[in-house]
């Protein structure tokens, strides 16, 4: 089946520095604002994107520095945000998505990242290959 073309698209690339987390979520929110979301919906999107970008920075790349890629697509009233890294990947996705699981127990992470993404977005899909990287697909329907 032919994949429906998006109505609008944007791409963003930045270094995996924590100072870019704010830039990334604000940019995605600015792109999403063309669908006139409520402040609550916009806050949900920003929070979910922040979690995914933070995961890419601290778990994907860790102490090394790489590029975080974001792609946003709008199809009708649906916004899809894809956050990719070429970092170390996740060996057990099911375990990583378990509430309160943290890959860094010594670092005071709450282990709520994936739970927040699942709660605040309508759909989430995770693809990961150890040693190759991780892609997180987040979709939110934005009501009129």
């Amino acid at each position, binding site marked *: 089946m032919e994949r429906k073309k998006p109505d609008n698209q944007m791409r963003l690339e930045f270094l995996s520095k*924590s*100072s870019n*987390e*704010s830039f990334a*979520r604000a940019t995605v929110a600015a792109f999403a604002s063309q669908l006139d979301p409520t*402040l*609550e919906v916009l*806050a*949900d999107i*920003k*929070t979910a994107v*922040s*979690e995914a970008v*933070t995961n890419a*920075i*601290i778990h994907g790349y860790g102490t090394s520095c790489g590029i975080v890629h974001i792609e946003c697509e709008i199809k009708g009233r649906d916004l899809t945000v894809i956050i990719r890294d070429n970092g170390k990947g996740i060996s057990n996705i099911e375990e990583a998505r378990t509430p309160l699981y943290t890959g860094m127990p010594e670092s*005071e*992470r*709450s282990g*709520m*990242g994936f*739970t*927040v993404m699942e*709660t605040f977005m309508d759909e989430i899909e995770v693809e990961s290959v150890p040693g190759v990287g991780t892609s997180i697909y987040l979709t939110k329907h934005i009501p009129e």
Partner: protein
Amino acid sequence: MKIQLKLKDRTLIAKLSGELDHHSAKTVKEMLENAIETKACVNLIFDLTGLTFMDSSGIGVIIGRYKLLQGIGGKVKIVSDKQSVNKLITMSGLTRLMEVCESVEQAIMNL
């Protein structure tokens, strides 16, 4: 991120303004640990009314200080009035560990 610290008896009141994410969490954690240690604080009130954004890194900061103060018999309270912040606090289960108050005065009274 701006952090204003006030001490009332042995209760530390931390007013956080701006965005609390993974980037700013480290600074917040260090400032709070330092103040708790040097001022011998027992209780902590997180005033989150000045926050414009918080993600799960903020939850980690709050739980970390809760564990620290619980160990010495202290209490932690949260003051929050933003829907987006409250949503995260509720879904994380923090409300089962500590009270969320409407004002700093109420938090102090309920200690």
